């Protein structure tokens, strides 16, 4: 049994993993009971499991839990601060940019990482930032409106 320490949404947390190769997703969903990162493919192909590790959008379904030892992990669950949604969340709510909402975690976390790095993005940049994420319901138009709104808001 390996004990792995990390910071989750600003709090020090410890995960007990029988198999250190276990993907981070199973620690977040299982032991820590988070609702944001979701299982979609387990193959790093859809993005539903995305978290931000040290500022980088990361697919937690293929990231071994030992690989984030000592690192700072941000999740959708901890994005809102003091009851206030992150600007990206506020934009997704305003645009109603979800249908079933199962993939939404990936779009929001990828957007947060991208816009916090640089909010000045053209339409083409935004699409490039989001390429590879899957949405089965076809919510892409509302998502693009929400990301545009968030980028404008964050660029000030």
């Amino acid at each position, binding site marked *: 049994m390996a004990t792995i320490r990390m910071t989750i949404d600003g709090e020090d947390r410890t995960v007990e993993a*029988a198999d250190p190769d276990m993907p981070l997703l199973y620690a977040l969903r299982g032991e820590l009971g988070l609702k944001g990162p979701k299982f979609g*493919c387990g193959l790093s192909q859809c993005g539903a499991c995305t978290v931000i590790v040290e500022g980088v959008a990361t697919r937690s379904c293929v990231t071994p839990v030992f690989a984030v030892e000592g690192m700072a992990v941000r999740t959708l669950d901890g994005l809102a601060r003091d009851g206030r949604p992150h600007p990206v969340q506020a934009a997704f709510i305003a645009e109603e940019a979800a249908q079933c909402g199962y993939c939404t975690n990936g779009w929001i976390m990828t957007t947060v990482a991208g816009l916090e790095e640089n909010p000045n993005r053209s339409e083409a940049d935004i699409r490039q930032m989001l390429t*590879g994420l899957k949405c089965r319901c076809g919510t*892409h138009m509302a998502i693009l409106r929400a990301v545009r709104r968030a980028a404008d808001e964050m660029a000030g």
Partner: protein
Amino acid sequence: MTDTLTMDRRSLLKASGALVFTLAGGGLDILALSPALAEMPQARPIAPTDLDTWIAVSTDGEVTAFFGKMDMGQGVDTAIAQVVAEELDVDVSRVSVVMGDTARTPNQGGASGSSGCRLGANPLRHAAAEARRVFVERAAQALDRPAQALSVQNGVVFVTAEPKTRISYGEMIAQGFDTALDWNEQYGNGLMVSGEAQPKSPLDYAVVGAPVARKDIPGKILATMEYCHHVTLPGMLHGRSVRPPVANAVPVRVDETSISHIPDARVVRKGDYVAVVADDEWNAIRAAKDLKVAWSETQPPFPGHEALHDHIRKAQKVGDNSVANFGKYVPYEPGPVLEAISASAKRLEAEYELPFQSHARMAPSVGLADVTGDTATIWSDTQKSHNQRDGLAKILGLKPENVRVIWKPGPGSYGRSDADEAAFEAAILSQETGRPVRVQWMRHEGHGWDPKAPAAVISCKAGLDEKGKLTGWYYRARGFSGWEVMFNASEPRDTLIGQLTGWERGKAQNYGVPGESYDFPNAVKFWETIAPLQDRASPLRCAHMRAPQEPQLHFASESFIDEVAAAAGADPIEFRLQYLTDPREIAVLEEVRRLSGWETRPSPALRKAGRLTGRGVSLNSGFGAYVATVCEVEVDEETGRVWPRKFHVAHDCGVVINPKSLRTTIEGNVVQGMSRTLFEEVRFDETAVTSIDWLGYPILDVMDAPEAIEISTINRVEEPAGGAGEPAHVTIPAAIANALFDATGVRFRRLPLTPERVKAGLV
């Protein structure tokens, strides 16, 4: 987890009579998170004739509506809340909607045929109107005034002439309504009730028709909403199913020692179904991967996907009809039509080829079951929980009244997807192990083993006279039955584990024909079905997928009308208008012509230098709605990439309940339709499905999303609400294919329109 703990949990359940379970890790009590569950945890008798079955009002005036359908992500619960708020005269923010729990909601047929508003809202509209009437009657007594002297505003009844004389709904609810409703004695989509009260005239609507914010959105964005995937049960096992490498192989020998290195993992077998269970989820995943199974030697069952359409052409017919989904048999006679066509000045013939498609949900199937002796509780994101309950009762050998299915939100489901499968597998595993079990399918199962949209070859023939008028119209759809797996899970034979444990598959036959109002002379439309490629537990078993068979049928019919129009040298919209008879079909077609700035001319466009561009139109009516779509495409000759840059959609679904979610729903119809048209095709070799992940089965990426989708909704306040979850989707394949023809002068008749196929066709 020990047996002692399991016992403790069960004693607790018995003692409290309440549904109590905890979320993993946090130890949070679900009752604290979900007021709806906390308010009324007890299972209660559900009688459509009892007003209390439909509507509950708390002493502080909060309203709960009980809805026997569920939302797949288009905001149906908000629309239902609007309808209830409208009739009850309460603020919509005070109405919450409980969906799909068999112990708490009447059987309204689940998510089905774009019927959430079209049919599902009707009983609640009447129930809410009746509830308002009862409150006004009680207020008349309490305030000692005649009912005509009273008004209602946000759940408060007051004397119109002296508004300070008032009483609130919460003060009058007492033990409920205790009021009987008339019921048409139907369950399912057609369930209808009414009371003494007449619902409001649509002309007086204030909440219905308003862009009310969707109630589900904040929970999805803030990660507070509980999906079925989040539910955990104390002491539960994690189950994973083990699938054969050759689709029709059955297990001969299972080597249990092959997983002895994984703590707590063990094998469960029932019939030809093999699974592993473990206390820890990751261990269950590892065990399913490591388990060594000797499978039977079989004849490979499939022709391979490149030989699919030849197989469909040559296979023996097993069923036929000349009407769509639910009609009775109507005879047809193609002979005279073919004679009329062959005697024509100009004759046209075309064949359209449609692939198998996968529901490919964002997450594959999940389900939890707790089977304890003669009762069972199931958590599922099924589209039809009441039907699933009946099927579970049969496969478990329990009475239906002892089985409760609790619907929880899941990844969108657009038809008979894999949603029911894991619930059935969890139920069997729970019964076999005596523990609660959670089954989560893996990605390769979601793509590889979900029910598929049926592949087809559609043959069309037509004749034109010297003046370009139609002389005959022949339409034959030939494919696998869309009812190989029926559209609900009320029979175990319609699940994978059912077939693996000895339930023989059903034999229902269905494909369909397009239903628009074109008044073609000498017309015949019919369908034929062929036998499945594999008789039992097939990964290519077919079922309903969004607007069942309609996108396939309309790809052919609406493409062929364009082919005939082109042969007649006519503008595609003008040509359609010559033959249409339904005024609402004509209206949407004229509206989309205006909206898109359509240039009246025949297709194809004259080819210009540089990038190829074109526009195409397509029409659909069904589910109580009328849609015409114009697509503008760009085609890259070098790569074969087709990019629908812009869509214009004219949409009439009767009275609009929520214009904001209607627009996003239409956008979803369009974008998912693009995905099915341009990218989606199940691939398989002779032994198995080979497109088992998002690389093998690509769907639309954001780089391919259109630049804009312009929508014009025609709000017909005087018409009943139609469906919106499917009708626009149906128009997309032909709108794109017609635009592609307009741009290139080449007609593409096989879906999907992949770059390889288009590039090859342009040479």
